[in-house]
């Protein structure tokens, strides 16, 4: 689950970059950059949940 979350995060980054290239209008561009950040936040939450499930377990 942690890895799934970490894989989702770059999708948010590419959404933010795509917004720069695709939308010249400042409002739309800003909105899509925020959407990219929200996708990243979603990925981070999934990764954190994955970490919490392993609570109390040490690698060794």
């Amino acid at each position, binding site marked *: 689950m942690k890895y799934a979350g*970490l894989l989702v*995060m770059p*999708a948010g*980054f*590419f959404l933010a970059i795509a917004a720069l290239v695709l939308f010249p209008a400042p409002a739309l561009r*800003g909105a899509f950059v925020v959407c990219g*950040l929200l996708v990243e936040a979603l990925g981070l939450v999934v990764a954190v949940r994955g970490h919490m499930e392993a609570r109390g377990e040490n690698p*060794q």
Partner: protein
Amino acid sequence: MNPLVPVNSGLAESTFALCLVLLVLAPLAIAGVALINTGLGRSRSAAQALLGSLLVVAVAAIVFALVGASFTGNPPGSPGGAGHILRIAGKSWNWIGAGPFLLGGLGSAPLESQMALIFELLAVALAALIPWGSGADRLKLSAGAAITAVLAAFAFPLIAHWTWTGGWLSQLGINFSLGAGFLDPGGAASIHVLGGLSALAIAWIAGSRRGKFPKEGFSTAMPGHNAVYVLFGCLLALVGWLAFNLAGAILWIHAPLAALPVTAINTIVSASAAVAATFLVTRIRFGKPDASLCANGWLTGLVASSAAAALVTPPQALFVGLVAGIATPLLVEVLELAVSIDDPSGALSVHGIGGLWGLIATGIFTAEPGQFVAQLVGVATLLGLVLPLVYLLFWVLNRWVPFRVDADGERVGMDLHELGGGAYPEFVIHRDDSYR
């Protein structure tokens, strides 16, 4: 190079002299953070923590000088400052520097490039110290050196190039009319957010200290062993931060001398507001102020000022510090109790989230159109690209150089296990109840 032959530089002589003095003072930030990390760890790992800090600084400087400086590149306008450029959608994306390896041509480089290199050498050492603190009491010296080598050779140069030396983030203003491009004169992104996100990756990969998070019940409190180190480290760090913020303003946004006093005032105001806010929050929550959380609050105010100090007014810096100071104790508590992240130095809250807040606040308070979006794109890059990247790099590295000490080493303490002697040989170190 003949030292008697002057080298052309964009810096005036007085600015050059001031910048050099500031860069000589900047290592005090490294000393401060090293002391804070040591004080927040356990007494049985204190010598290893501080020796590890020296090792981290040494490895960071050597690896960056040999390899990393090439990928960072030189400031725009200087020889060799172009970097590798991708052309996408009719725009140029300068994604990595193309300077010479092994500091080739340094002697004949302009003074500004040489100053920039000193700044970057110190910045990479500070960035690498941050995850070392979060891995306290369980990270081996070999792991600290290996992590630092990866940060100094690749991760730091990439972000430093993007933000400081003409990379694509700094060009957002030219390419997409987003204000002046991504602004980070004091290193909030390149130093602190990188360090904070690396700390998160290491806390995830290395796991928590044994006994910190039992399968059932609350987490075990493992307070720092020396509040005096921690608080003295905060005072040392202030001098170093002033140096970093002022030198960064000169080198990366070409601030005039007249703008520097306000930058210094903003740095002090931000840290002061943050520590006052943390003092009040902890006093209200716990009945008495908490020394280590107040230290974390002070440091978060400094970290947030790294992005904002050169670009905001003093009342705005006060607000930036207040928010940082209120959020820090709450974040430290949430990350430990609710999210089960064992981060003894609070690096994720202080450097990671504090740095992100500083970058966003800079966008909020800078009047230039599009600046806020430019800052958000920078934040999206750090979270969406840099965090997965450093996690992947460290995950692979951990297979090769295991980060974590074995169970016996953790039980006897890192000092005895790795160095054969403790930091405080005259004192009896009491066995605690965390190894059940």
